[in-house]
């Protein structure tokens, strides 16, 4: 009884702590002027929202572009991260420690340290200012997450299941589709969520490589904030947290709870 009450108290505190910072945003987005020392704005207005959804603001295009970049980055990260994670999780090979370190490096190094190098290389390749360039740049911080999550997943996967499937007449593709994928999918989902959110919230790399021509939501948000449009900033900021919120709500039970995410489905 006591523990239950403590638990719900903690949950409430956590929820309040998470929601409270967003409260001013919500109020700003519907305020028509909000001056000190008023506790709440005197008048409300839907002007900011109307503007945010209008075609002139570019918010919706930016939302679509950011989603496209994050999804593509996630897909590419999965295409590389699943086989790489399999190699790291299942096999011993020469130089495995070095490979792991190199994979971890982007997660350890500050983005600022590599962004200039990346910029000059991309300049030569003509990738600066392009969506493809931005996606490639996003892969740098995203790949380590995906690969390391998949390495943990495969470390708990028994490849004998694949031999068994082959011996029962499954082709390599069928084996992956019907045996390996179901086993790794909870972990793959976790890795994909991380990847999506890391790409979605990327500011520095997008700014440096996109050169202002690739306007993702964080860039747009920052420019409205810098220009003092607090009401529009509030509206965009709320749109900006939508994917994170949706992802958490939809997959909460996968990522936490049953603990299935990292251990994979194939453990007895």
């Amino acid at each position, binding site marked *: 009884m006591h523990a239950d009450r403590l638990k719900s108290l903690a949950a409430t505190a956590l929820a309040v702590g998470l929601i409270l910072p967003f409260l001013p945003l919500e109020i700003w987005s519907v305020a028509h002027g909000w001056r000190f020392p008023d506790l709440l704005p005197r008048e409300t207005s839907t002007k900011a929202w109307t503007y945010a959804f209008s075609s002139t603001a570019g918010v919706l295009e930016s939302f679509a572009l950011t989603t496209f970049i994050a999804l593509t980055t996630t897909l590419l990260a999965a295409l590389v991260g699943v086989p790489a994670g399999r190699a790291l999780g299942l096999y011993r090979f020469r130089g495995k420690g070095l490979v792991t370190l190199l994979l971890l490096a982007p997660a350890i190094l500050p983005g600022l340290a590599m962004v200039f190098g990346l910029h000059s290389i991309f300049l030569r390749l003509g990738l600066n200012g392009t969506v493809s360039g931005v996606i490639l740049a996003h892969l740098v911080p995203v790949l380590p997450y995906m690969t390391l999550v998949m390495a943990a997943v495969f470390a708990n996967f028994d490849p004998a299941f694949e031999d068994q499937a*082959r011996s029962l*007449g499954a082709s390599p593709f069928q084996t992956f589709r019907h045996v390996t994928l179901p*086993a790794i999918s909870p972990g793959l989902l976790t890795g994909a969520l991380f990847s999506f959110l890391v790409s979605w919230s990327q500011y520095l790399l997008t700014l440096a490589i996109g050169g202002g021509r690739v306007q993702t939501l964080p860039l747009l948000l920052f420019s409205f904030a810098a220009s003092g449009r607090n009401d529009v900033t509030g509206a965009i900021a709320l749109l900006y947290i939508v994917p994170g919120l949706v992802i958490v709500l939809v997959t909460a039970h996968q990522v936490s709870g049953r603990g299935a995410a990292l251990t994979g489905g194939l453990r007895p």
Partner: protein
Amino acid sequence: MTTLTLAGLTKTYPGTDRPALDRLDLAIESGSLTSLLGPSGCGKTTTMKLIAGLLAPDAGEIVLNGRSIHGLVPERRGVAMVLQNPLLFPHLTVGGNIGFGLKMRGLSSTEIARQVDPMLARVHLDGMGHRPPTALSGGQQQRAALARALILKPKVLLLDEPLSNLDAGLREEMQTLIRTLQRETGITTLVVTHDQAEAVALSDRIALLFGGKLAQHGPPEDFYRRPASKAVARFFGGVNFVPGRSQAGTFQSVLGPLALSKGLADGDHLLTVRPEALRLSPGPNARRARVDAVAFLGTQTRIDLSVAGVNLQALKAPDEAATLRPGMEIDISLPPDALWLLPSGDH
């Protein structure tokens, strides 16, 4: 009819200098249940994986029904393998597992269901098709794994240590089930095992491997009555070996002349006699023996004897040995038809 022939099969794993399998020649009889027997590391599991196509041989051929299956991918070989652990796919039901191979062949779900139900019954898992594999006991999981392979009606069925994860009681049940299903279906079956008692109880024929080489291939009785070498005899519980020379049906050794049965070759040999075949009574080839020790082993009693300085061991029913005490002098005999000669080279 399925003929499976292994010819000169050789496999060396990277990083090892001794081949795991060394020029193995083996002709598996069609429709038989053959055990690949041997101590761990003898190459029996390697042989199985080579037949299944999960490993590629360095040299040699695997010929199935007159055609080499070299280079053929596992799913095209018509060979189904049941691994040591049941390895039921955890995201599928028991029925889904048994129907897995049929689904891979592209059969419709109604056709799969039509075949899965009777198969569930054959392995005594009636009504358990909708359960998750984790709801089954170890023995039931093993049976489901067997059904999953059998339903494909493979040309060759490979079973890797099918009984090793089961308790004694379940072992016998599973042994009977494998035997029954194999006889009913007539599928040429290869069982890998390290347990000679299991191989004897289960198989029509045994192929015994030592260090990647075939030591002997034949019906189970041969391994007791006509072992090919001292190592084979020892693997099957042979303990009595006496060096000497055979000539014209008589064996000369420190035991004195012993009459042999007909057809044994002349020359230097190692004489062997099964401990069960030694008689503790006078008869042909009678000798005087001293009892050194008597050990009660439950269903049998082991009697250590010495005859002219040679130690011999006898295994007898406890009743027969009840009156024996260490130090007693008794009459024993070595029946000529129980005497067998081994090459003298390998003792």
